[in-house]
Each structure stands twice: as structure tokens, then as C-alpha cells.
């Protein structure tokens, strides 16, 4: 049952991700991104991270993407026109992309040994139970207190910056 759900939602996530790139209309792309977020949330849920799953939907699926859609609707952005590609992009695009992926894979492999290795043990869905809100809260306020506080200050700075910028606009 868990495996079937995993296959279904992993497929949905990948298809939505491809759709996000291939669609020419901003609204279609944004909606595909919401599809990716939603199916990722289901994958988190399958792994037992219920709090992260719900936070994913509330923050990314809800708040962030609503703002995206809101801005797209407000600007009334139309369908993208395919720009005439330069000869450099046409010739060197695919080889460069492959080279980039290879370098990235090499870097990941050297930085995190075993990250790309085939796992010896199958993933057991629902075997991990550390994903409740309580556990995450405890970790946030003990082990990860410093990063948590730093991020809070970063967000505060961003809010102040937004207020300052908007203030100028009004005057």
C-alpha cells in the first residue's frame, strides 16, 4: 500500500516538475509547482514526518504559491514567447548541461560519500516516528537553537527591508 502510494506520488511530482519547465504560461507553471509541493508533502507523510508534510502545504503550497499566483494575476502576464536562441546556446547547450550535471554528481559524491550509492537496505515506510510537532519543537529549541534564532533575525531583516522599500514607494 505504502509502496503504491509512493510510486503514484513520486510520479506525479516528477511529471509536475517537467510540466513546470515545459509550460509556456506562467499560471500553468505555478500550478505545476503547487503539484510538486503537494506530492512532496505526501511523500513526507509516507515517511512519518507529519508536521513537515503539513508545514510544506501551509507554507509552500498555501502562502508562497498564493503570492506567486497573485502577482502573476495582478501583472496579467501572458504566454511566454520563445526567444530566438543564439547559435552558442543551440550548439553548446546540451554538452554544457551534461558537463554541469557530471561535475555536480562528482562534487556530491566527494562531499557526501555514500549519498549516491545504491542503498543496501530497503526504505521502510512509517518506521520512523520522530516527525511529530513535539519532537521537532524540542530539536528546534535545543540542538538547532542557534540556526533557528539566526533565521528569525534574517526574516526580521527581510521584513524591515520590505517595509522600507514600500515606504519609499508611497512617498
Amino acid at each position: 500500500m505504502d509502496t503504491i502510494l509512493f510510486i503514484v506520488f513520486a510520479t506525479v511530482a516528477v511529471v509536475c516538475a517537467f510540466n513546470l519547465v515545459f509550460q509556456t504560461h506562467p499560471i500553468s507553471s505555478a500550478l505545476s509547482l503547487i503539484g510538486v509541493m503537494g506530492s512532496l508533502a505526501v511523500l513526507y507523510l509516507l515517511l512519518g514526518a507529519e508536521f513537515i508534510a503539513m508545514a510544506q502545504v501551509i507554507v509552500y503550497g498555501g502562502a508562497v504559491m498564493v503570492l506567486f499566483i497573485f502577482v502573476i494575476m495582478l501583472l496579467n502576464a501572458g504566454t511566454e514567447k520563445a526567444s530566438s536562441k543564439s547559435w552558442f546556446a543551440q550548439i553548446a547547450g546540451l554538452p554544457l548541461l551534461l558537463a554541469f550535471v557530471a561535475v555536480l554528481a562528482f562534487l556530491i559524491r566527494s562531499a557526501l560519500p555514500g549519498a549516491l550509492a545504491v542503498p543496501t537496505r530497503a526504505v521502510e515506510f512509517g518506521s520512523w516516528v520522530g516527525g511529530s510537532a513535539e519532537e521537532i519543537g524540542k530539536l528546534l529549541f535545543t540542538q538547532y537553537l542557534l540556526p533557528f534564532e539566526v533565521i528569525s533575525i534574517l526574516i526580521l531583516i527581510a521584513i524591515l527591508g520590505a517595509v522600507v522599500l514600500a515606504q519609499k514607494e508611497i512617498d
Partner: protein
Amino acid sequence: MNINFIVVSLIKILLVFGIFMTTLAYLQWVERKVLAHIQLRTGPLRVGPHGLMQPLADVFKLLTKEDLLPPYVNRFFYLLAPFIAVCLALITISVIPFGPEVQIFGVRTYMQISDLNVGILFFLALSAVSVYGVALAGWSSNNKYSLLGGLRSSAQMISYELPLTLAIVAPLLLANHLSFRAISDAQAGYYLGFIPRWNVFQFPFPQVLGFLIFLISAFAETNRIPFDLPEAENELVAGFHTEYSSMKFASFFMAEYANIVNITCVATLLFLGGWHPLFPAPFSNWIAPLVLLFAAAMCFFQGTQPARKGDRITFPIFGVAFLVLTLIFAVAASGIIPALTAILLAVFWFAAKVGLLIFIFIWVRGTLPRFRYDQLMHFAWTFLFPLALINLLLTALFVALFPGKA
């Protein structure tokens, strides 16, 4: 996952869904009747006795109307929008608990489709995502009124989600849990033997302020008067659903009423103690039969002084129906059949609280005028949001000062 679990779940889903859909259909009748009486009219009367068949007639009307697909719309999103709206609105009911754990024919089960550990977050997630139904409907219609309605709605729902969420956090602090069942169970019992421990009467810091903030935000979240700017008739024709007809229009309509029921259920669970009665147990059991008996007596009394021709027959029939209900609840109250007592009394108190809140929704619609758009935003950001923050800080302070009480 055994066969027992699947069968019980299927029965529960069928029951809840059936009752929910009937409630949605009749909510519209109730709203029209209450509004009519507020405005000294009589409301729907023609179809069936006292217009009771009106919802059925409306459903047939909407089903048989021409399903118009305007040529200038964005087809895919235009068809997707009502689907999103109605699906998300109907899913929420699956995490709402209606009563305690009960035992029927040897099977122990919760009166709830599924008890999620993160029930509150699930509700918030669905309400956050349900903006898309309205926003996409407005955008895909390719119509300036629809677009403005959709934009207004998304801005309004984002803004009012903040005070709503902050108001929700205060009861969460008191209950120390994210599941609806645990939050409701934390409000069981009585102070001094007669004051219920609901969150609105909570001892160190009663959540009256939080409840009011939640209720006001709920009006905005469900796009109801006085915050129904997205469908303001005199400015935007019908707002985001201007271009929709037939069943697609009905979907939006249904989603609106489903959202009202959902949000009043959540308000009941968070602030009004869920299914826990207002009075201590042996005495409160008899409230339900007494109320129903009063309703029966009113019906018989109205039957003796008919305002219309049919009333001489219909009112006594309603009276007899209420008497039968009184009898059933009296049996439940006396405790002869324990399962019946647990189920019916929990459902009575839950339905009574939800019904009261829905009545307030309709009452407000019949009383208040519509806000201006800038007033709406100003109210949310400069008044409601700071107020919710202060409420949250005070609650947190009291929870920290009286750790045993909360």
C-alpha cells in the same frame, strides 16, 4: 489494516458524507428562512410545506440548467477551479470529531472519520490551499469583474488567515496538542462543579477575545457579509463566479456552505468544548429531550392559530415528529442503552453549538452592511492582527505562570 477497520471506516464515511450533504442542502433553506424573517418576509413557501422541498427543487433546477462554456475562457483552469473549491471544502469534515469513543456491537470506534495527529494543521493547510479555487476561477474567466473578485478574494484570505491562525494557536497552547480530539478532551469537566472548562471560560485567561477574533476572521475566510467583497453585486456583478453556470456555479455555492460548516465545527472544537455539554452529566442529559419537547409544544400551539391554510395540518405533523425525537432522546438520556446515550447526546451538543454559530453567521448577514475594500484590509492588518498577537502573548504568559492549570 484488517477488514473490520475498513468496514467501520466505510460506514462512518457514508454516514458523515450523507449527513453533511443533507446539512449543506438545508442550510440554504435555513439561511433563506432566517433572512426572510429578519426582513419581515416569509421566505420560501411554495415547494412543499413551508418550502421544505426547496433545496431539492434548487438542485434539480441547477442540474437541468444549460451548462454554458464561454468561448473566451481558459478552458482547463475554468473547469478545474470549481472542482478544487468543492473538493477541498468537502475533505475537511474528515478530521472533525463529533463525539467520544463509542462501542457499537462490540466494535470500539471514534465518532470521527480519522483522528489525525496534526488535525489542526490539516485544516489550516486545506484552508490555505482553497484560495486557488476562487483565484483561478476569477483569472480563467477572462472577465474584468471576475478577475477583480478573484484578486480581492486571494488578498482577503491571505490577510485574514494570519489573525485566524494566531487565534487558533492560543487554544493549542492550552491543550498542548494538535489533534482535534485531544483539544476537545482537554476541555472536559467543570470548575466548581458547574462552570464548563471550555476554552471561552478557561480559568486563568478565558479565550473570549480569541474566540471573537476567530469568528471575525471566519467571516472573511468564508467570504461572507460583512466581508463578501469578492462577490459584491453592486461593484462586481457576481465576482469570481460571474461566468459560471449550472452545476459549476452550484459547486462554488456548495463549497461556500461547506466552508461555513467546517469553520463553525472548528470554532466549536477549539473554543466551545466540542461535544462536551454545558452542564454536568446527569442533569445535562435531559436538556435535549426538554428542548425537543418545547419545539413540539410550539408546533402544536402554532397549529391552533394557522397563519396560512396548510398550517392546520403541517404544524401538528411537525409536532408529532418532534415528539418522536423527544422520546428517542429521553431513552438516550435515561441511559438504558449506553451506546445510544453516548452517540446521541454528543451529537446533540455538537450540533447545538455548531447550529448556534451558523445562526450567528446568518444573523450577521441579515444585519450588517458590507465593508469598503480599504476598510477591510485596514481592519485586518492594523486592528485584528495586533489584537490576536496580544491575545497569544497573554495566553502564553498565563500558561507559563500557571503550568498546572492549562
